């Protein structure tokens, strides 16, 4: 490590209008190890949505940092989360992403656990000449330290000594609500998630997921594809996606929340293109005019450290899993109201495929750029990145009128025309990074 303490890697001086992050944050392996221990394996991390384990005995298998875990709904409907490892010799007991099983049987010696994680059978136990001390052991699957949900999203902390999930999420909960309450009967993932990797640091995704500034350069080909469609030069009308530059004159802003969370928002130019607009009367009647207006806005939300919900060219939920300092795995879902009209659903799907899919016309340009960034950041220069100051003079501590409209108390607010394309929305994540890692000896 270049500096003794993680706090020295971020220069955060709002009075002087300075916010700088050292390049090593993206390339230092010792820092990455600290991130795994103290961020991904030392605090709240999103694992899955409750609707992915809706029925008794449904399970979902995923990773929290490096640790494989199983989320399982027992026969009585209660949710559990335990480590994916047999108590006998430690083999993983689950090898698929999801499914429905009353019993999980270890392939090695056949130890069996029920869907609540309770040990149901130790093969040939009677003949095993086990001592009393063995019988005194707990043979159940090992539960994670903390497991809580908010608005249908489930989170785990592998460390017990953390704030409640609600306190951790804070006011960012309002933006989770704006995504998770769009449907009168709840939300669901459209079947068919995509799963991809990039050879870059996980924080490149954290930032880019809220980056309005890159759209007209990185995604120029997407912007111009939409322009061609609108000019009649392309007859492909199946997606009817939003025109991005049309946002530039519209109102936009961002909120920095406590604990690393942040959101950027903007008005949308063509409301009638939004799948949700087709059901807006029901939405207004249910959530009120103000929340309905916010549900039609473009909102890109980061819940630190591994969840992003973006509502722009359709609504997505994506997860970020760090594999190495320079390698990250992503899972991307299209999210939609349960019971959505087929015509709206199909348009939503085509918009998702148009933009967000790893096979689409936007995401591959992001991932390839992350790899460019990683290559550049790995040159080892003792230097500070200059990507945190756009929007600084429009930044206001606390709530602005937009925050007050939603009853929010953010750390800071910024609003103005979309053309600002602010980069101050990244401050929260790096402040949280410092809070979690400072004072820890490497």
């Amino acid at each position, binding site marked *: 490590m270049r500096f003794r303490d993680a706090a020295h890697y971020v220069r955060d001086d709002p009075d002087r209008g300075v916010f700088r992050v050292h390049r090593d944050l993206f390339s230092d392996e010792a820092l990455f190890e600290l991130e795994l221990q103290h961020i991904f394996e030392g605090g709240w991390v999103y694992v899955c949505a409750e609707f992915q384990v809706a029925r008794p005995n449904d399970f979902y298998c995923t990773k929290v940092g490096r640790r494989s875990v199983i989320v399982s709904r027992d026969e009585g409907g209660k949710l559990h989360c335990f480590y994916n490892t047999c108590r006998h010799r430690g083999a993983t007991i689950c090898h*698929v992403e999801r499914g429905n099983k009353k019993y999980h049987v270890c392939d090695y010696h056949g130890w069996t656990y029920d869907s609540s994680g309770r040990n149901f059978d130790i093969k040939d136990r009677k003949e095993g000449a086990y001592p009393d001390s063995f019988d005194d052991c707990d043979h159940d699957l090992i539960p994670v330290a903390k497991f809580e949900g908010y608005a249908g999203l489930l989170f785990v902390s592998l460390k017990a000594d953390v704030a409640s999930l609600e306190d951790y999420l804070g006011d960012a909960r309002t933006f989770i609500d704006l995504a998770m309450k769009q449907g009168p009967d709840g939300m669901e993932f459209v079947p*068919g998630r995509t799963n991809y*990797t990039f*050879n870059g640091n996980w924080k490149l995704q954290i930032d880019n997921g809220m980056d309005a500034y890159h759209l007209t350069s990185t995604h120029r*080909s997407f912007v111009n594809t939409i322009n*061609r469609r609108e000019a009649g030069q*392309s007859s492909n009308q199946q997606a009817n996606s939003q025109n991005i530059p049309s946002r530039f004159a519209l109102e936009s802003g961002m909120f920095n929340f406590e604990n690393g969370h942040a959101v950027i928002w903007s008005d949308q130019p063509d409301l009638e293109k939004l799948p949700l607009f087709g059901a807006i009367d029901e939405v207004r009647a249910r959530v009120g005019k103000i929340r309905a207006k916010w549900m039609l806005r473009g909102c890109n939300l980061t819940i630190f450290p591994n969840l992003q919900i973006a509502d722009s060219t359709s609504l997505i939920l994506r997860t970020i899993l760090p594999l190495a300092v320079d390698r990250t795995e992503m899972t991307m879902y299209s999210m939609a109201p349960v019971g959505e009209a087929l015509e709206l659903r*199909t348009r939503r799907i085509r918009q998702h495929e148009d933009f967000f899919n790893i*096979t689409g016309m936007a995401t591959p340009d992001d991932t390839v750029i992350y790899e460019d960034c990683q290559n550049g950041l790995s040159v080892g220069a003792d230097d500070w990145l200059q990507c945190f100051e756009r929007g600084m003079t429009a930044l206001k501590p606390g709530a602005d009128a937009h925050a007050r409209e939603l009853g929010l108390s953010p750390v800071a607010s910024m609003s103005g025309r979309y053309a600002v394309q602010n980069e101050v929305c990244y401050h929260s994540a790096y402040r949280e990074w410092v809070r979690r890692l400072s004072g820890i000896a490497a």
Partner: protein
Amino acid sequence: MTLLAAASDLLAREGLYLDERRWDDWLALYCEDCTFWAPSWLDEEVQSNDPERQISLFYFSSRAGLEDRVWRIRSGQAPSLVPIPRTTHLIANPVLDDCATGDAMVVRSAWTCHIYTLRNRTQHVFFGRYEHHLVRLGGDWRIQHKKITLMNDFVPAMLDVFCV
């Protein structure tokens, strides 16, 4: 030419046109009202089967969708496509469905696509199966429907229409 030979010839030409970036020749293999579909995997064993209700890796309900992608490739405006990765398609084991006639046939085949990404000097192989629905229009065979099964759908950074 037998039907199987005609089908094999078309499959080989499609791979050739993609690898040689003869995009207009590639598009000309498709009917205007074609469908081009790469289902996603819903779990370890089941693929999506309804593009209206499920996410696909690719779903274009006409050639215009492919034309958008070709425009993007040629535009030089997409970082993931500049420089454009080099590809080699190997297409093998064509089998005709029993219902093949002189006007329409379904041919199933196996494929691999080797991709060399010049931007970071990495290489990757995607592989899977094709199902081509071919029709004879004015003496030439054209693709009415193409279904691409991608076996290894854990994607390193990018995957475009010419990588499958």
